[in-house]
């Protein structure tokens, strides 16, 4: 398990080159998430939520500004170092499960361990899947699982290395209410158990409400930052 790490985003801007000229997705976003806390990022479609998360995950470099995960400034790392960072310290969950269709549920989770250089770890994966209620499905290929089951496998893959930071982009976007709740429970439980920092991009106010903090983006800028009102 990696040590808990906070996230610091300073004046991050992200522009895309298009035939019609540059398009600004993020316009100088600054925020901080303390280690072990959870943050919900909300906002209308196209406001830059997913881009902000991709920049935090090192999937996309910022055009300007800085991103720190713990004491590492991820925005200054090389691509190779960013990959290693994701492999070792980050857990990523997306709206689509993004499981590899030719691997069983167990293998999809074990892949994450293998990416870290450990060819074993099946028992740990099986245990985690069992904890997530997927003990009977571990040898199934993804196309034999329901949407909720696939997303739970994806969450297991993200959590198996006990990351210090969990980044989730619309993790419940394609799930029904019951499955949504179950997935959010899983993420929060993991955050709680490991002390990881959790950032969730969501449209769903009920998901946002369950986070420690939330902020709202519009046109690539933070328009509101608050501790959500608990129901």
């Amino acid at each position, binding site marked *: 398990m990696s040590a808990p790490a906070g996230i610091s985003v300073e004046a991050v801007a992200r522009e895309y080159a298009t035939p019609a000229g540059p398009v600004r997705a993020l316009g100088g976003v600054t925020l901080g998430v303390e280690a072990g806390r959870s943050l919900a990022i909300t906002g209308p479609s196209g406001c830059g939520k997913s881009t902000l998360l991709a920049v935090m995950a090192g999937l996309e470099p910022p055009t300007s500004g800085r991103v720190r995960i713990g004491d590492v400034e991820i925005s200054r790392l090389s691509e190779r170092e960013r990959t290693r960072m994701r492999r070792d310290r980050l857990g990523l969950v997306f709206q*689509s499960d993004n499981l590899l269709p030719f691997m069983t549920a167990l293998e999809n989770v074990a892949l994450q361990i*293998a990416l870290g250089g450990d060819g074993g770890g099946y028992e740990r994966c099986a245990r985690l899947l069992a904890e997530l209620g997927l003990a009977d499905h571990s040898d199934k290929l993804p196309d034999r699982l329901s949407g909720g089951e696939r997303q739970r496998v994806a969450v297991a893959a993200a959590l198996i290395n006990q990351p210090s930071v969990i980044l989730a982009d619309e993790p419940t976007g394609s799930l029904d209410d019951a499955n949504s709740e179950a997935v959010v429970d899983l993420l929060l439980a993991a955050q709680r158990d490991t002390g990881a920092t959790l950032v969730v991009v969501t449209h769903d106010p009920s998901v946002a409400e369950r986070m420690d903090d939330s902020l709202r983006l519009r046109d690539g800028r933070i328009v509101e930052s608050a501790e959500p009102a608990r129901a």
Partner: protein
Amino acid sequence: MLSYVRRDLVRNPRRTVASIVGVTLGVGLFSGVLFFIDGSGASMTKRAVAPLALDMQVVLNAPLGGGLRLDEQYRAGRFVLTVKNQGSAPANEVVVADEPSPPLSYTHDSATLNGKALPDVGGRSPLSQGLAGTGFNLGTVGPGATVTLTYAVRTAGARAPPQMQGRISSRENVVPAPANAPPPITLPQLRARLSSIPGVAAVDGLAFVDLPPGSLRAGGATAKDTVRLFAFDSGYQKHYPSIRVVSGGMRPGSALLSAEAARHVDRGAGGIVELTIPGRRAPLTLPASGIADLSTAKPLFYSRKSNKLEEFLYVPDSVVVSPATFDSIAIPAFRAATATRGSALKSLPLAEADVLVKRSGLRSDPGTALAQTKAVAAAVGRSAPGQVYLIDNISNTLQVARDDARIGKRMFLFLGLPGALLAAFLAAYTAGVLASTQRREQANLRIRGAHRSHLMRMLAYRTLAFAGAGALLGTAIGLLSVLVILGGSTLFEASAGSLVASALGAIGFGMLITAFALYIPARRSLSREITQERGEMALTPEPAWRRLRLDFVLLAAAGVAEVLAIRGGAFDAPPGSVYSGQAVTLPSYLLLAPVVAWFGGILLSVRTFQAITSRLPIPNPPRFGPVVRGILLRSLRRRSWVPASGTVGVGLVVAFGAGLAMFTSTYDASKAGDARFTVGSDVRATPSVLSPKVHPPSYASKLRVPGVAAVTPVVSKLENSVLIGPNNEDRKNLTAIDPAGYQRTAGLSDSFFVGRSAVAAMAALKADRQGILVQQSSAESLSIKAGDRVQVLLARGTKQQALRTFRVVGIFKRLPGFPQGTDVVANLSAYVAATRSNQADFFLARAIDPSHAGLARVAAALRAGPGAADPLNIETSATALNKDQSSLTALNVHGLLDLNSLYTLLMTAAAVAIFVFGLMLQRRREYIALRARGLHARELQALVLGEAALVGLSGLAAGLLVGTGLAYLMVHILRPLFILDPSLTFPVSEIVTLGALALAAALLSALAATAILRRLSPTEILRET
């Protein structure tokens, strides 16, 4: 709708290019082959007629002329036939034949001869006896005499104008002449008539007759052998340059002597020679005006017998006189000789007008050119009906060339057909790869209210655009590539009409087949319900061809075609002959069999490949294994049909390219092997007839110039022996060789001998000096077996003639070095001892370096060395190859190979690239997810590269395997084209190049694909549902 499709194509350039590239290359190859056929076929007329010695020979039926004539009239129910001899010599064995044509019939016992009753013979008219309708023999009709024959007829039905059907022949003019024929035409009259025929370039008169041995003398010297007396003028010599005057010239009233004749009578220009001519009391004395080398004069010595037109029957002792001398002296003498009762002339004069057709006016297409020469031949036939017969060599040759061109076109078409099929396959494959990306767009359109008919129309427009653009572009590229390979001058020799037809054919066929390949799967996809689609998106969807066992069906069909062909003797077709107008036959179904086997073979290979990959061992829990290998093995095992589909594309292209390279290489080797077989070895040195020296077998040592590994002397002539079997005897071509030297020099194969190896046969001949080898069919016809003792008359018709007994030590089928065949092979030392002849006819030499350059060096060394002082005619296997007469074996297969190789390489690269970019399209989310989860770029690169390399390698392996089979089938089909059985040749460098390119294409495509991956936005892709 149209504008949506247009925007779709323009705004997705990568997808559009991927869809068009396969079609373009496939149609490019197919159209290239069609243009290549046009260009190659256009030069076939020129190529076919180039080696022709004589275009047309118009032979006089009655070269001796004479005044024998038959008039026939019909008067009141009677036919009256009047025979008149208007000449100055008697006509002997005069036969008159006549039979009334229906509805008229002969009235029994009505025939009269000079007014007296002529009895019926066997109840039939004496003028039409027996089943053969033999005529009545009048005996001798003296000069100025007239004989009248009559017979009555009755009619059995409607009256029709009576036909005059009488014919007359005599010992002097054996060809029956029709009644009421015009007076016999003379050679000058015939030449004048023929000269005015459109399409005729020149008409030259030629007459000759063989005189008995000893007919040529000078002083005390006599030419011992048969003498041929020719009559032609200087115009003839000018039109047929193989008649080489080496000293003096041709002059009226003089004789031009062949080099051998001059040597035998020891006279040169200025000397006096005497010719004894049958029927003439005193010898003809003529001054010799010059000496000529006639040893290669094919127009003079080609056989005039219809069944031996290709035989060069050389008569060394020849004398040429002017036509005036021949007409005024030889013809009357022979006329007198034939009139003499009891005279038995072995040869009668032959007179012909040799017609040179205007070759520059012949159309480049052999079929059209044939129509032109046939028109000339028809006009020739009308020039003197009943008085001449025509030997139409040029039409026979063009007929073969036309048939060869048709076979060549068919053969090339079948070689090009895979191009069209590959275009269809690549189109279908690309469509399959792009289907997943289009499915989403189609779903969106449906959600927004598009009907299925809208989607169908859009599909039709899109298909039409891809197929149309690909076919047009492919045809343009095909034309361009043929232009580069053949050159503009050759390509544009073809008529504009045929080029336009080829272009339209390629565009039409290309559009049809690729549109079909693009449209059908996409339409099927549109017609299905979403649930069915999802079912098909399983990890290992089994292709339809596997379910239908198409691979086994195709291979079985090819096998059945082969078995039927073998049983039907299709591979044992007789060799073609340009003189008899007989072309090689190649049934179409045989050409189709390799194409069917090609497709079936690749599908079977891919079935095997899939079976292997689906059983790949993957690490079992609790091990995942090394990350790249772990992912790759699981992907291959559980999605084995994905690389298998890629393997089909690469395998088809590689099999086609490799098969073609092997076929061409074998074709070349077989042609070279045939040329070497014809020559006898690498080099054949024949002492020139101009050489006054004797060339004993030991002369071989003088020919050991630098570059020559071995030389051997050979004695061989046509019909120079008589082989006497237990029941029969026959004239045979005998060859005498030094067995050890011949074995070292000539390329001997065990297949040339019956029941023993080449080494054993030569050893037997060497061990037994009184041993002979006999050719199989000769042995069969004379009932001779190995071990028999037989008599052979050696050096037949010469002063060295000798009868000896030999033991048959072996039977052979054929031997190298004797294009006109040899029937008996004797030991040279025994031959020399028996005949006391010390003259070798030619020498065979094996070169150290058999390449064209090496042979050219040896030929130059021979000419500069022993040939400088003593003229030698040198032929090498390279020069024999260039003189190849068959227009089919002379096809520009290399040009075709260049064309196909270019497209094979491009299509291999395209197939691999389409596969890799297809993977990219289908799996980009998978790859991006892996990157997001921490897979390094290099690891991802290794993953893509691993799969691409596997497809490249397995496609290569399957392609080479199937290509070898394909080449074997194609070579097998072409067996009738060659003298020797072709054996498959493996061109290592071409195959290695092809393999290297396939792998390089896989590597480059994988690198490019991963580079593109880096440019994709992971945020967008990972959010796709």
